[in-house]
């Protein structure tokens, strides 16, 4: 034992002790972009879920007397082609975007984690077959599957979440498998196996808890991807169906009026999508910094 690593063994120990979580928080906070990203996400969650209580609008009736109005005191962001208040619609559509994105991202991560952990732990030909399935899945463009399926079935909200989850679990499964491969040969798992512990215990008590940081980081990126995917399909008119809407759908209907100069129908939902997707990615980066257990053990 020598080199630099041995330096921190005796001296740093006591302080390192209690504050592991605090250290992770501090690392996260040091990543400025991640903090801004967290702020943006919190803002949009409040905006979409609390906003309607403060700024109530009619999002159900067609109001032909106030169509395509530009921003004013009564309608802060103007109105759209059927007379809905645009700001209220941004909240209403955002709710759908966020819910679908979050649920699909989480679903994809859960499926991916289970699949990857099973493949990595089993090893051998089971691993080979399971990972070839993943390779095959990654080879088919997700958007293509999504479009075909939603064109055939016209899914409702939960259907959409299911489809998104089922096509985007592939990448997290690879990450978790890699993590599992190293963890299953760690001494604490070997010790458990040598003294008669079962596979179930090795996976649930050791491998999954130790890959949780990888999983959380992967989940954040999955959420960003899912929000973007929902926006794509809705933009192409195959996602959330009217009278309900989401940011992609709003962008789509706004585009029909693009040449009329109705910028308030395009810029706000577009910006909202960009900001939220960027924010989740930034949070993912920050979490990766914060959780990076390598070298610390």
């Amino acid at each position, binding site marked *: 034992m020598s080199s*630099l690593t041995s330096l921190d063994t*005796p*001296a*740093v120990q006591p302080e390192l002790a209690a504050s592991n979580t605090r250290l992770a928080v501090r690392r996260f906070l040091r990543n400025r972009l991640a903090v801004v990203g967290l702020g943006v996400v919190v803002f949009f969650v409040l905006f979409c879920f609390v906003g309607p209580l403060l700024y109530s609008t009619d999002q159900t009736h067609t109001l032909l007397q106030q169509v395509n109005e530009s921003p004013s005191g009564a309608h802060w962001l103007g109105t759209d082609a059927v007379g809905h208040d645009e700001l209220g619609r941004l909240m209403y559509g955002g709710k759908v975007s966020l819910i679908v994105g979050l649920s699909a991202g989480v679903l994809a991560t859960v499926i991916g984690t289970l699949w990857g952990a099973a493949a990595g732990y089993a090893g051998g030909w089971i691993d080979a077959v399971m990972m070839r399935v993943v390779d095959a899945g990654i080879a088919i463009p997700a958007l293509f599957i999504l479009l075909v399926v939603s064109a055939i079935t016209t899914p409702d909200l939960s259907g959409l979440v299911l489809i998104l989850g089922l096509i985007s679990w592939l990448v997290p499964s690879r990450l978790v498998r890699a993590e599992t491969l190293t963890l299953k040969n760690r001494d604490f798992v*070997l*010790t458990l196996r040598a003294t008669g512990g079962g596979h179930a215990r090795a996976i649930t*008590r050791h491998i999954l808890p130790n890959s949780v940081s990888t999983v959380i980081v992967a989940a954040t990126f999955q959420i960003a991807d899912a929000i973007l995917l929902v926006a794509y399909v809705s933009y192409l008119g195959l996602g959330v169906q009217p009278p309900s809407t989401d940011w992609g759908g709003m962008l789509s209907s706004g585009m029909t009026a693009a040449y009329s100069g109705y910028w308030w129908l395009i810029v706000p939902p577009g910006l909202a999508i960009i900001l939220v997707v960027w924010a989740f990615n930034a949070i993912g980066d920050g979490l990766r910094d914060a959780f990076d257990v390598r070298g610390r*053990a």
Partner: protein
Amino acid sequence: MSAVRPPAAPAPDGGHILDLDDLGVVFTTETGTVRAVRGVSLHVAPGETLALVGESGSGKSTVALAAMGLLAGNARATGRAVVDGTDIVGADEEQLSGLRGKTVSMVFQEPATALDPLTRVGRQIAEVIRNHRRVSAADAAARAVELLRRVGIPEPEQRARAYPFQLSGGQRQRVVIAMAIANEPALLIADEPTTALDVTVQAEILDLLRRLAAETGTGVLLVTHNMGVVADFADRVAVMYQGAVVETGSVEDVLLRPSHDYTKRLLSAVPRLSVSEAAGGGDTAEPAGAGSVGAGSVGAGSAEEPAVELTDVSVVFGRGKQAVHALRGVSFAVRPGETLGLVGESGSGKSTASRVALGLVAPTAGSVTLFGADLARTRARARRALRAGVGVVLQDPVASLDPRMTVGECVAEPLRVHRRTLSGRERESLVGDVLDRVRLPREVARRAPRELSGGQRQRVSLARALVLGPRLLVADEPTSALDVSVQEAVLEVIGELQEELGFACLFVSHDLAVVQQFARRVVVMRAGRAEEQGLTSATLLHPETDYTRRLLAAVPVPDPIVQRGRRAERLATLAAGRTEEQG
């Protein structure tokens, strides 16, 4: 052979090539500042070897890095570190790169990472030469071959075209040394140069370093934790403790007549290899074919059923051309209450053998019997029940404990697996009892493994191994990642508990001195075979095979006078062997 360089011209600083004066190093980390080195003053004269010894965290490596100006970005050095007239502390990068590799160069611990894996070794050496001298590529290449010859690499013309992965660990370290001496430095800093190597290779590398230093008058700063290496190589010794030098003196004074308390404690904790008096007296003519001694049969007398028995076990990893024969027909048994030591160099198969005994690796041929039941013929459920009687302690104190569990959860895990009916309170009291036994305070149960030191963690592993009251303990290098003083404490605990609980112990180690001290019987492994086995007292004092004899001869003992004799004897034996081969 290259021309022998005359001893370096006396450096301006009172004839010292390295002069440290009140050197201090402070690291700024996330959790605050750490003073790694405080007020260190040392010097190295040309042609002299100064050993810097101490346990992990004592700051010895930091001193070496500071002398090279290679401290990490978060470190700040104070005081003076003068190399050949230039103060390294506060020198700019240009001055430093002029010095490094030319006036002062370094040999690192791990030869595998010190070399660029994608560049042929001859080119790597030539590059070091051309960094400091205006010579043609062809000349540099020729010089590289010359250097390889000088560090004792056979067929240097061919080897110069090899990639690092094509060389053995010892050869790689020779290449690293060739790079270090390429520009005939006045000072060589060697940071644990032999720690990653097997003892026989270590002996060769130390011979090489000693010869080079003597030939060229190079001053050497040797950083090491191994007192045997110090006794073998150093002229003077500086002992570091908690960032400060506590004692300096000649190697005889420090190792044989230590004055500081810490040095005394450190030295008394070093396990010493007892050597046979007959061999020490220079009586190398002892008949090699002394098969009539038959020490191997002595240990087999016990009638008790062995806790674990390997019969003619072979293990092959992979198949076809890539097949690796990790074990070839190995047989041994561990009986209740006794400790069997499994020794050998890296790649000898000792760890594989222990994993076979644990049932983690299935033998390709042969059989394993655990507590009288053939593992291959028992059903999964019965096998799991058998394993309740096995405790395991592995080498790495960090990787052995799940970082996401508390110490208490780690220790309680075997109870959760095998005694599911226990209530939480019963479990807690059993965990507390076993923590008492390994001499850890009960409070550690609530703490995370990373809050404990390496030695404490190994004791937690031991507690986990013992919580079910096992009949067999398998310890795979349980102390080789620990400092000697900690090693002593851990071994003591294992020994006491074995006496008290009577479990059988399979003890795997590369350290012959530790095995000699700890095991009653020993199996010497070599290239997957059991080279020799018998009672420790017989086998390690009067080995029957040449290999065991060579292995024992290569272990440096922490007594400079005895070690000098052993070295001369070993070299004489080697030379004799060489002339025999030629003849």
